[in-house]
């Protein structure tokens, strides 16, 4: 084990997979020589050459479309889309193409592509560089959406995503690139489609997604001081969803808080809440609480963005609500 940042973890995952499998290649805007806007691919072109790691025109449709075509024909493209907001530009390629080709082929041909993209608010980048695109694809069968929360998971999940035969949207929270954490020195992967209990607790279940897992964990620490024992579940892969661990936890704690960064209305938290309202309704001792952003674009002004973004206080308040305090 050693300490690494999220950025290093992703960079190493990419390097290891480029090394391991020559069908893997990496491309996107400025990912080559420059090493990517967030320097996540730094050094990879030097190491693997311009044929494996390269820059492209400023055309997301080309990135999305060629990735599908490449994945269908024997390679394993990893594409960088600079900001998650631009996922709207390749919604056709994702929704109508990548997600549907395994269904459309009869011979088991899969679509082993990974779209890495950044997401999230908190750096005053404004309404077009801060969105969380999960909601745009949560109703699309055939796509996998992965949102890691720790350096360990970023690395292991990215490696698993690259090896996976289904198309994966891999979400990187841009506020978290500097986060540090323990990462094994040797080879490992973290399985897709498996949630993890990040914290064991008895009083309330908190399901948190991506960058909000840390927020939930810190809220849980503070709640402990207050005598509240929160269980924190990180789905890691949100589509498709590993539901049982959530149901099990709610059956134990009888309370549920869901935390994500996108707007609450129409967001993925609704799906989790609905699942529980169907499968574990009578275990609930309190209404389900969702913590998310208000139904507005991400505002620019510092104070507005702060009010917009869910934080520990919001999680704590929601937990207290479920406890009737």
């Amino acid at each position, binding site marked *: 084990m050693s300490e690494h940042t999220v950025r290093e973890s992703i960079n190493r995952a990419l390097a290891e997979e480029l090394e391991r499998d020559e069908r893997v290649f990496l491309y996107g805007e400025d990912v080559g020589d420059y090493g990517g806007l967030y320097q996540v691919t730094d050094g990879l072109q030097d190491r693997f050459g311009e044929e494996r790691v390269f820059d492209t025109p400023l055309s997301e449709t080309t990135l999305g479309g060629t990735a599908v*075509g490449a994945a269908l024909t024997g390679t394993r493209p990893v594409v960088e889309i600079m900001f998650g907001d631009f996922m709207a530009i390749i919604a056709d390629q994702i929704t109508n193409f990548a997600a549907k080709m395994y269904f459309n082929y009869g011979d088991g041909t*899969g679509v082993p592509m990974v779209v890495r993209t950044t997401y999230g608010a908190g750096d005053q980048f404004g309404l077009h560089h801060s969105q969380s695109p999960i909601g745009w694809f949560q109703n699309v069968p055939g796509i996998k959406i992965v949102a890691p929360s720790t350096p360990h998971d970023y690395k292991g999940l990215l490696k698993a995503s690259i090896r996976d*035969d289904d198309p994966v949207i891999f979400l990187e929270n841009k506020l978290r690139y500097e986060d540090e954490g323990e990462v094994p020195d040797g080879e490992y992967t973290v399985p897709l489609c498996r949630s993890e209990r990040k914290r064991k607790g008895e009083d309330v279940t908190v399901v948190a997604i991506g960058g909000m897992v840390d927020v939930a964990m810190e809220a849980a620490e503070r709640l402990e001081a207050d005598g509240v024992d929160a269980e924190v579940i990180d789905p890691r892969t949100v589509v498709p969803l*590993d539901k049982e661990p959530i149901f099990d936890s709610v059956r134990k704690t009888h309370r549920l808080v869901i935390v994500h960064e996108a707007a609450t209305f129409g967001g993925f938290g609704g799906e989790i809440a609905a699942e529980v309202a169907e499968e574990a309704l009578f275990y609930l001792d309190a209404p389900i609480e969702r913590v998310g952003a208000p139904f507005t674009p991400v505002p620019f002004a510092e104070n507005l963005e702060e009010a917009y973004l869910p934080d520990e206080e919001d999680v704590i308040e929601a937990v207290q609500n479920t406890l009737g305090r």
Partner: protein
Amino acid sequence: MNLNDEQRREIYENLLFARRFEETVLEAYESGGVPELPHLSIGQEAVGVGATYALSEDDWIAPSLRTRAPILMRVPLKEVTAGMYGTVSGPSEGRTTQHHMGSTEHGILGTTGMVGSHLNAAVGAGLSSRQLGDDRVSAVFFGDGATTRGEFHTALNYAAVEDLPVVFIIENNGWTEETPIEQVTAVEEDLIEFAGHDLPSSVVDGQDADEVLAATSEAVDRAREGNGPTLLEMKTYRYRPHAEVIQERRDEAEIKRWKQRDPVKIYRDRLLDDGVVDEAWLEDLDASLREEIEASFEFAQNDPAPPEETMYHVYKDVEVDRDGGVVR
């Protein structure tokens, strides 16, 4: 590409095969109905046949909705016909139509119903070819209407910038669904003008399979030698409306004029003139193709409907239940 007599006969066979197949589809549709709404390419056969003939068997083909001949040349007929009926023996066991079918074995890139979205996918096949160093060329077919989409620009540009082995083939039949192409394209004369990109391009008589073959062969050679993509505009015409539900609103005179340059007839006459075939051979061929086609319809009509599980085939690498839940 110098063709011997056998090859020339083979090309004719494919032309007639595509023609007879679609005529049968039309009959079946008009009598009992066919579940997949027919979008016939009758009149355009020479483009698909000539171009496919210029490719190696393991080159990739990315067809459009209208590109029937390459599918028929590569995929077993019963599978294609079953695909129209949505039965278990279709290319995706009834999950989808055969219009946009994909098959790795047969080198057909699966496509979507979004006209033109497959251009970049075909460029992606070119990327694979470069990554794997396997020399496969990718040929993408698309209509004149598709040239007005952004994919036309972005795919051509990327293929040209990266010198990828891609052949872009416009099947210019002069119409989108119901709008004449000249009404919606800012070019003086030909659609290849549209491509300001630095790549070779030419206009080809799409009714003459030999011309199509020659132009495509040159493009394929260029691609295989690492000299990048080519854009070909095949002038052609569909005899039927966009789809069988749609009212015809094109000029009768226009349709008639094009029928005078029928691709099947042009080729047959040439083979007869050159003494490569005789009437008896032609009749035998016709009879045997009709028989094969009939048999495929009979097969498809008796092929069973897919069981419900067939549609739960959404993820390759994980088991997911019908409610989006992971099965542990």
